[in-house]
C-alpha cells in the first residue's frame, strides 16, 4: 500500500518568515501538461511594502558583517542547496518538464553560481576600488559599497538559476533584496527561501515574492525606500513605465536582459556606490 504524500504549502518569504499574502490571494501553479501542482501566494502591494521594510531593517547588519562572513554565508547557501539538489531537480521537472539531466544541470549551475559569488565577497572592493593619487598631501581611497535595498524582477523563463543569478550578486556586497520570482514557476523560489532560511543568512536580507510581476513591480519601482531596481527579468512587462516610476527618487535602474544572466563582476558593482574618502597627511 503506497503512502499518501504530504504536499507543501508554498507561501511568501518576508523578513525570514513565511507568511501568506495579506491579500489572502493565491494562484494555481501547473505543470507542463496543465496538471495542478500547488497554490502559490499572490503578493500584494502591502506584501511588497512589508518586504521593503524587512529589507531596509536587515541591510545595515548585513553590510556590517565582515566580507569574510558574508562570503561564508553565501557558500553555506551552496552547501544547503547541494544537500537538497534532488528535491530542486524534481521541482523544476514538475514545473517545467523536459529532461531530468537538464533540470539537474540547472540545480548544479545554481549551486556553482552561489560558490562563484561567495568568493567575491572579500575581493570585489579590491578590484573595483582604488587609491587616488591626488595632487596634494591627502590620503584618498575610493571603494564600492552596497547601494542599499534592491528590488529585482527575476528572469521569468527560469525556475531557479535565473533567480540565483540576480540575487547572489546583489547580496554579496551587502545589499538587501526584494525579489519577484518567476510567475509561472514560483515553487523553486520558495524552496530556495527555505534554503536561505537555514543558511545563517540574516532574516530580511532576501525577501521573495510570488505572484504577477506586472502587479507587484510597479509598487517596488515607485517605492521611495528602494535604492536600485534590477529589471533583468522584466522584458515582457511594461518596463519603461517602471523606469519612469523609478526616476522619481533617482532609483538606479538596470534594464531588462533576455535569458539567464552570466556570472559577472559587473553584476556586483552595478549595485554598488563608489565612496571617496579624503584625509590630509601631516607631520604635525
Amino acid at each position, binding site marked *: 500500500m503506497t503512502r499518501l504524500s504530504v504536499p507543501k504549502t508554498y507561501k511568501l518569504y518576508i523578513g525570514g518568515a513565511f507568511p501568506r499574502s495579506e491579500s489572502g490571494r493565491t494562484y494555481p501553479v501547473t505543470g507542463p501538461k496543465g496538471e495542478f501542482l500547488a497554490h502559490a501566494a499572490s503578493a500584494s502591494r502591502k506584501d511588497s511594502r512589508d518586504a521593503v521594510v524587512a529589507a531596509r531593517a536587515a541591510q545595515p547588519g548585513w553590510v556590517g558583517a565582515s566580507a569574510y562572513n558574508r562570503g561564508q554565508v553565501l557558500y553555506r547557501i551552496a552547501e544547503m542547496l547541494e544537500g537538497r539538489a534532488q528535491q530542486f531537480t524534481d521541482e523544476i521537472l514538475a514545473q*517545467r518538464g523536459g*529532461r531530468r*539531466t*537538464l533540470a539537474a*544541470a*540547472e540545480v*548544479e*549551475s*545554481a549551486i*556553482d*553560481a552561489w560558490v*562563484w559569488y561567495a568568493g567575491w565577497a572579500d575581493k570585489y572592493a579590491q*578590484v*573595483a576600488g*582604488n587609491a*587616488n593619487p*591626488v*595632487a*596634494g598631501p*591627502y590620503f*584618498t581611497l*575610493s571603494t564600492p559599497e552596497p*547601494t542599499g535595498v534592491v528590488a529585482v524582477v527575476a*528572469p521569468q*523563463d527560469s*525556475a531557479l*538559476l*535565473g533567480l540565483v*543569478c540576480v540575487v547572489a550578486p546583489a547580496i554579496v556586497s551587502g545589499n538587501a533584496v526584494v525579489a519577484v520570482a518567476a510567475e509561472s514557476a514560483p515553487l523553486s523560489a520558495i524552496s530556495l527561501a527555505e534554503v536561505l532560511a537555514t543558511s545563517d543568512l540574516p532574516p530580511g536580507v532576501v525577501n521573495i515574492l510570488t505572484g504577477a510581476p506586472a502587479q507587484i513591480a510597479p509598487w517596488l519601482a515607485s517605492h521611495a525606500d528602494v*535604492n536600485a531596481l534590477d529589471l533583468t527579468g522584466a522584458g515582457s512587462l511594461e*518596463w*519603461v513605465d517602471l*523606469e*519612469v516610476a*523609478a*526616476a522619481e*527618487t*533617482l532609483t*538606479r*535602474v*538596470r*534594464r531588462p*536582459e533576455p*535569458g*539567464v*544572466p*552570466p*556570472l*559577472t*563582476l*559587473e553584476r556586483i558593482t*552595478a549595485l554598488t*556606490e*563608489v*565612496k*571617496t*574618502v*579624503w*584625509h*590630509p597627511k601631516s607631520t604635525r
Partner: protein
Amino acid sequence: MGFLDYAPAPESASILSLRPEYGLFVDGEFVDGHGEPFVTISPATEERIAQVARADERDVDAAVAAARRAYERTWSRMSGTDRGKYLFRIARLVQERARELAVAESLDNGKPIRESRDVDIPLVAAWFFYYAGWADKLEYAGLGPRPRPLGVAAQVIPWNFPLLMAAWKIAPALAAGNTVVLKPAETTPLTALLLAEILQQADLPPGVVNILTGAGETGRTLVAHPGVDKVAFTGSTAVGRQIARAVAGTGRRLTLELGGKAANIVFDDAPLDEAVEGIVNGIFFNQGHVCCAGSRLLVQESIHDEVLDRLKRRLATLRLGDPLDKNTDIGAINSAEQLERIRELSAAGEQEGATRWSPECAIPDRGFWFAPTIFDGVTTSSRIAREEVFGPVLSVLTFRTLAEAVAKANNTPYGLSAGIWSEKGSRILAIADQLRAGVVWANTFNRFDPAAPFGGYKESGYGREGGRHGLHPYLSPSTLATPPAMIDTTGVTGSAATRASASARSAASGRGGKGNGK
C-alpha cells in the same frame, strides 16, 4: 585704513579680447544660431559682456549630426595615442591661457578671481591632462580587454563651475572615444566659448566637440535627441528627475550629478582652528554655489558656543565685493533668479524660528549679492536644513552622540558629500563607513582632483566623475563572463547534460558584452 582694510587689487579685464557676439560652435566652426540670441552679463555689475546665440531644434540636429560624423569617420577610428595627444594639447593651451580664462570666468560667473585662478582653471588643465593619459590605456580601466565608446554624448552643465564642469564632461568622454555636444548654462556661456577657440587652436577634428549655448529648452531638446547615445547632466535634482524620465526606455546611458545637502560634522575633539577654516571653505567657497557644499553644520553640543564664536569672528574678516579683486573672498551671486531663491529660503529659515546672523558687510549698489549668513538653532525639519539653498547660508544643528550625528547627517534624500572633523582616526573611519555620501572629507572639505572619483548616493544622482571610475560612464564593457550559470534554461537548443558542456557553451556565449545599466 585699519589693518584689515586692503587697498583694491583688481585683476585687469584688459587681458580679455572678447568678441561682441558669439555663435554656436558646430563642426569646428562658429555658426549663427536659429534661436533668439541672448546677452550674458556680469552678475557683479549687471553690465553686458557679450551677445550669445541660442540653439534651437535645427541647431541641435546639426550639432548631433556633426558629432555623429566625427565619431564614425574620425574619432572612433583614431588611435588612443592620438586622442590622448589632442587632450594633452588642450591641457597645455588651457595652462597657457589660464589667466585670461580665470578673468573671463570671474567676470561671467561672479566668483572671486582667487578661486577661478587657484582652483577652477588649474583643475580644468589637470582634468584634461589626467584623462589624456587614459586614452591609450582603456583596457586597464577595469571594463575588460576591449571596452568600446558609446558614440555621441549629450552633456548639460551648470553655472557654478562653468569651465570646470565642461572639462569634467568633455575630457573623459573624448578619452574614451566618444564625441560630444555640450550645452553650457544660460548665465555662464563665456568660458565654454573660449574653450571652443582653444579646441580650434588644438586643431581638434571638426565635430568632435560641439558647443550649443541656450537655456533650458535647448538642454531639453539635446538630452531627448534620438541621435545621442549617452546623456550626462550636472544640475538640480528636479531637472535630473525630468531627464531620467525622458531617457527611460531609450536604452541611452545616463549619469546625473545633482544636488546635495552635506553635513559637516564637528566633534568635540576636533582641531578647531582647522575645523573653522573647513566650515568656512565648506559653505562660503564659491558663494555656496556648490552642490557638495557643507551646508549643514552638525556640531557636538558641548563645543557649540565656542565653534559659533570662532566662526563669527572668522566671518567678520571675509571680504565681499568685486570678483576681479584679488582680495575678495565672497563674490557675486550668479543671477537675480538665484538671489531670489536664497532670499526666499533665508526668510523661511527665520519664519521657522532659526536665529539669523551675518557679519557687518557692505553690499555693492549694483549686481547680485548676499552676505555670508549663519542660521543657528535649526531643526531637522526646517526647510533650510532640508532644501538645497545653493548660496552662502549655513544651517547649524547640534548633536550629542556619535549615533545621533550619523542619523542626522543621513537624514536627507541627498547623498553627495559629507565632512568629519575629529582627531580620532578610528572614529573618523567608522563614521565614514556609515555616511551615505559619495565623497567624505575628513579634516578637510571641498577637495577636488581629477584622480579622485566624485558623485552621489540617493537623490544626488548616479555615476562618478573623476578617476578610473569616471571613464566607466563613457565606455561599454567587454564583459568577462564566467561559465557555470550559462545553462540554457529555455531548453530550446543543445544539451547541458554535463557540467563540462554547460561550461564550454557559456564560455562561448558569455562574450560580446552585456552590461547596460548605469
